[in-house]
């Protein structure tokens, strides 16, 4: 049976530098769905050990009040990742984010070490979830095999900075350079039944541009976005949370389809829109998202 939290709500995944205890002590006050405690790029090369130490104690001592604790470990091409995994598992992290994943094999290697650590530290086998960051063209092209690689894998996230370097371009602000990766990844994730998150947006002075980008990735089908600042959380949640109007419409669709099905009617209208069974799953998903976001007050 798959992990009960594998498909939980993950609209906002906020990066925090493990090298800075002040940042990791209480990020839950900003109410992100997930935090990504970073051992990788944000941590100076000679501070990896100190960051792991802070991370371990934070995981052990701090009540994150239901916020998912994801840890971004160092890449498999570094000397750090094995110890990172031991610390994550010993501390009781919910999920490990594998940097620079390029193949299903990368996930399998990490999975092996996670299992060994779970045994070493007496944690239930299979309790540590995984997610993969795709940061290269190869990784993006292998998205489907990565998505299918492990029962622990909750989804894949685009890492735009490294990916555009590999693509030999830059982040242009137009989004054109990320189009292919975004499409490829969301299609692969949905095909494999896992989640998919968009890359960070780093210009904090352009909140309006950020908002447009979030609207776009929601329309594309993404489950959420990696974030670099708590100020971005409310905007993401606003866009990813169904409006009362959407919720009421979804409720009607679900109820009507259930009723009409019993009466042997296949196609009918709700609020002037033609509805058939094809709308059922989408409407159910809206209700589920409303419930997970804590805004649903109905009885479905």
């Amino acid at each position, binding site marked *: 049976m798959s992990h009960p939290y594998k498909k939980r709500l993950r609209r906002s995944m906020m990066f925090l530098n493990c090298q800075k205890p002040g940042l990791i*002590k*209480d990020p839950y*006050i*900003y109410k992100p769905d997930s935090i990504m405690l970073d051992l990788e790029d944000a941590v100076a090369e000679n501070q990896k050990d100190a960051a792991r130490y802070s991370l371990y104690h934070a995981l052990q001592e701090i009540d994150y009040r239901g916020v998912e604790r994801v840890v971004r470990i160092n890449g498999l091409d570094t000397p750090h990742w094995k110890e990172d995994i031991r610390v994550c598992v010993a501390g009781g992290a919910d999920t490990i984010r594998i940097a620079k994943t390029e193949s299903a094999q990368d996930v399998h290697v990490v999975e092996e070490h996670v299992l060994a650590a779970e045994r070493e530290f007496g944690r239930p086998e299979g309790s540590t979830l995984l997610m993969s960051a795709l940061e290269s063209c190869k990784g993006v092209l292998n998205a489907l095999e990565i998505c299918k690689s492990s029962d622990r894998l909750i989804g894949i996230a685009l890492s735009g900075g490294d990916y555009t370097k590999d693509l030999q371009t830059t982040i242009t602000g137009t989004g054109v350079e990320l189009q292919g990766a975004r499409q490829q990844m969301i299609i692969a994730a949905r095909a494999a039944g896992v989640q998919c998150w968009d890359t960070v947006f780093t210009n*904090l002075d352009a909140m309006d541009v950020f908002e447009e980008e979030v609207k776009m990735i929601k329309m594309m089908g993404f489950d959420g976005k990696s974030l670099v*600042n*708590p*100020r971005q959380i409310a905007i993401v949640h606003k866009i990813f949370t169904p409006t009362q109007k959407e919720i009421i419409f979804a409720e009607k669709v679900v109820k009507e389809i259930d009723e009409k099905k019993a009466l042997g009617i296949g196609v009918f209208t709700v609020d002037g829109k033609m509805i058939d069974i094809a709308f059922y799953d989408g409407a159910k998903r809206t209700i589920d998202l409303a419930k997970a976001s804590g805004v649903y007050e109905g009885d479905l």
Partner: protein
Amino acid sequence: MINAVGREIPEEVLKATGKKVFEGAYAYDNYEYTKAAPTVHAVCDPKRSKMVENIHEALVKCGIKDGMTISFHHHFREGDYIVNMVMEEIHNMGIKGITICASSLGKAHDPIVPMIEDGTIVGIQSSGVRGKIGEAISTGKLRDLAIMRSHGGRVRAIESGEVHIDIAFIGAPTCDEYGNMKANGGKSDCGVLSYAVVDAEYADKVVAITDCLVPFPNVPASISMVHVDYVCVVDAIGNPAKIATGAAKPTTDVRKIMMADYCTQFVINTPYFKEGFSYQTGVGGASIASTISLGKIMEERGIHMGLGLGGITTPMCNLLEKGLVKTLVDTQDFDMGAIESIKKNPNHIEITASEYANPFNKGAYVNKLDFVILASLEVDVNFNCNVVVGSDGMITGAQGGHPDTAAGAKCTIVIAPLLQGRIPAICTNVTTVTTPGETVDVVITDYGIAINPKRQDLIECMKDVKLPFKTIEELRDMAYAMVGEPDPVQFGDRVVGIIEARDGTIIDVVREIKDYEFKD
């Protein structure tokens, strides 16, 4: 004797000061008293000049002698040169036993500490002290009890005769040879001279000190020549860079912005948020962020502020410029934007500290406040605030207008992060009570918002508002769960200072600090 906020005020302190214990924020309503009056030396002879060569001559002509009380204002903030300049001359003259009655003292005045140690200065009465003067008082170096008073309380103390000022030294950005003083037009502009007005009216001798002598008459004057005995021109009365800085960049600290947003959401859901409401806020990052976010909502809803009061900052002036505020009523300017605003905007006006906050006049502006947004070092489960004594027991802050505005406003909101570093800001008992909890309605922290249970009306109107409401005890418990309950600060027996309530009663005492002794 235990007072109304549960603090033990030692009998010997009551005896030595002749003061009573605090009985409640409004216990002195309708109190009858006769105002004090200064002893005045008339200037009938039109040939007599008020100009003196230097501070020394001013002191001699004013008859400076041992044991006198002299006063200063703090409009030059951390850029002030006047206090040090005058005290240095008094020290050089070998005068002893001086009591300083200042509207506030800061780190700029660290150089007077040796004069506390050698007995030149034996008493300090101020809104508060920072830096080395605070350390000197807390470590027992001052001979007499230090008295900490609010801005309104200071006016009351002077007008009621509780403190009598022998000589007032008033730094003035511009002044004419007959003593008409203005806060602007010179090289050290400070916007207003509000705190100094009571000194001018009630001191026996008044010395105007300026670095910009202007032709007579310097009008309209903040302080009139009719109160002034002598005028002294010096090279510089202050450091303009430290008197007023450029407008602080709005904070990018997400924690402060979040608390500011909570504050704005609270404000707009009260019945007081309506056309013509009145509002005051402080100078901290969260306070300024609140003003900015409130301004946006005022604009959206077409609601105007009738009165903006108090220490003024650029964001309030911006609201005035936009036509969102009808009148700004000013007792202190915190930045260049505020100073520029009062110079050019006729709806931005200067008032005296008495008009602002004196509890013993016939009604001060603070009484007309709907909202005040304040900060605090500590808040306890009875909503008592401490803004003067650090959690390490050292005197380190000032009451300012905190108790005055809290007592006056219909809705007093205190913003404080739950933890100040490793110290819980929400606690069982504040180190020192400086503002009584009965006047504090709401505490906003980064972890949640607590409404004072005595404000059932506010609790009722927030019933359907989606903000993280908690009880104050829950907030304290969260803080203690994270960083532990701190051991109480260990003080010595000697009382070194008193915290005076607005009405002159004693709300708490400050004891000598003592090195921490570990238990075996």
